[in-house]
């Protein structure tokens, strides 16, 4: 995939599906025509650096795509928090998160209802509203931070080494250049600083949330906390999870300082993912993930059916998580080995070229 394709692909991701092919075809053609024109003027082919600078002049793919969209809605409370460029992504993420959260809530309440527990309308509404509020606030804050960055540094972006996706870059140098995979232009690939900062923020939020859940199980069980509690396995895996999350923060901080340590990131990620898989394995093995709350221990038989149903839900969810984690780990290992082999090959080609020079 050449630079133009990568740029076009980054624009395409932010376009409505039905217009994507048409717009990207036209955009690619326009870029190729411009490159051809320049090459005719110069009487030679454009270098990769020149192509990069030409694409950079066209602007951030997210902003380019936004110009084609008819939908220019925003999120504003007095001032604009999320502009039309990020709005469609904001809605997508929010819908996905809320959809997932409400699915989990629906499963829990259905399980409780099936097992004969009395559920008040108030319980369902208060749990749903709490989750809605948390998701809305967190997602809006994250997107408004990205929006601020996009407004302050619209030229601070680069095309990722993998798959032609777009990444924002926290580098604020005015002359920041479009950086592409090192393999394509003979430079070393780098970890996006935006990615590193996002991981640090997300990991800290995760640790705070996990710690809060330890003391207030309402955050995860909702009103069911009146008769359910988390089984001891969750307390046992709390520190391993925090340890892995801290490890990820440490890695992100190191990559913030040394974005060129991509191999270090790949190895670290494999270790963290393997650790995560081990935790999921112990979780699956535990067999019980919720138990009857201490407050209603004397009426445990009344809630036995609810506990069984919720545990069954946990079992299938954890099983799916384990399969997905294992598949991802295998894919990452295969990808890592392939990259190592390929880099070894390109290094040899590079050395041979240097020798020829």
């Amino acid at each position, binding site marked *: 995939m050449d630079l133009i394709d990568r740029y076009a692909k980054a624009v395409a991701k932010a376009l409505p599906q039905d*217009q994507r092919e*048409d*717009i990207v*075809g*036209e*955009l690619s*053609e*326009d870029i*190729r*025509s*411009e490159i051809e024109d320049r090459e005719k003027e110069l009487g030679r082919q454009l270098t990769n650096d020149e192509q990069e600078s030409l694409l950079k002049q*066209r*602007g951030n793919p997210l*902003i*380019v795509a936004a*110009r*084609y969209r008819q939908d220019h809605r925003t999120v504003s409370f007095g001032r604009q928090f999320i502009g039309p460029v990020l709005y469609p992504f904001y809605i997508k993420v929010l819908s996905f998160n809320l959809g997932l959260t409400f699915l989990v809530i629906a499963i829990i309440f259905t399980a409780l209802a099936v097992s004969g527990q009395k559920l008040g309308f108030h319980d369902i509404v208060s749990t749903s509203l709490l989750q809605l509020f948390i998701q809305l606030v967190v997602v809006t804050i994250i997107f408004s931070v990205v929006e601020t960055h996009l407004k302050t540094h619209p030229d601070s972006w680069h095309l990722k080494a993998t798959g032609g996706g777009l990444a924002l870059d926290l580098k604020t140098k005015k002359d920041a250049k479009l950086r592409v995979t090192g393999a394509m232009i003979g430079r070393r690939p780098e970890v996006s600083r935006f990615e590193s900062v996002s991981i640090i923020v997300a990991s800290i939020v995760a640790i705070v949330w996990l710690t809060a859940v330890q003391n207030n199980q309402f955050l995860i069980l909702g009103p069911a906390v009146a008769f359910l509690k988390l089984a001891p396995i969750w307390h046992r895996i709390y520190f391993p999870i925090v340890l892995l999350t801290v490890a990820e923060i440490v890695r992100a901080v190191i990559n913030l300082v040394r974005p060129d340590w991509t191999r270090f990131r790949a190895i670290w990620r494999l270790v963290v993912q393997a650790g995560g898989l081990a935790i999921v394995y112990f979780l699956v093995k535990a067999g019980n993930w919720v138990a009857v709350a201490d407050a209603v221990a004397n009426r445990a038989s009344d809630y036995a059916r609810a506990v069984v149903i919720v545990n069954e839900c946990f079992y299938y969810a954890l099983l799916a998580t384990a399969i997905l984690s294992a598949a991802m780990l295998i894919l990452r290992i295969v990808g890592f080995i392939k990259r190592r082999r390929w880099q070894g090959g390109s290094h040899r080609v590079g050395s041979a070229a240097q020798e020829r020079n």
Partner: protein
Amino acid sequence: MTPGTDNNDLFENLRLELRRGSLVLAVLTALRKEQYGYTLRKTLAEHGMTIDEGTLYPLLRRLESQGLLASEWREEEKRNKRFYRLSPEGKAILKQLLAEWQSINLSLNKML
């Protein structure tokens, strides 16, 4: 921010607004002859109406959805290109717009 910078910004905004209004007219005029996006951009630039692709292509799509332009994908020099031309409705609108523009021009010239 200094008053000079403020004035420059204000002038730039007003200038862009003025050009934006004339852009549709320029594009429709240039498309009396069939062209694809890049050559259209060059034609406009040669006549002093420089327009970036991020503005031109969405404008072309809008004009086409309004029925003023017709387009088709065709292969030229081994590459697929989208050619635009004025539709019969576009021709009629262009005629009216040009008359309006000339009338505005005349009025302004009298005032100046």
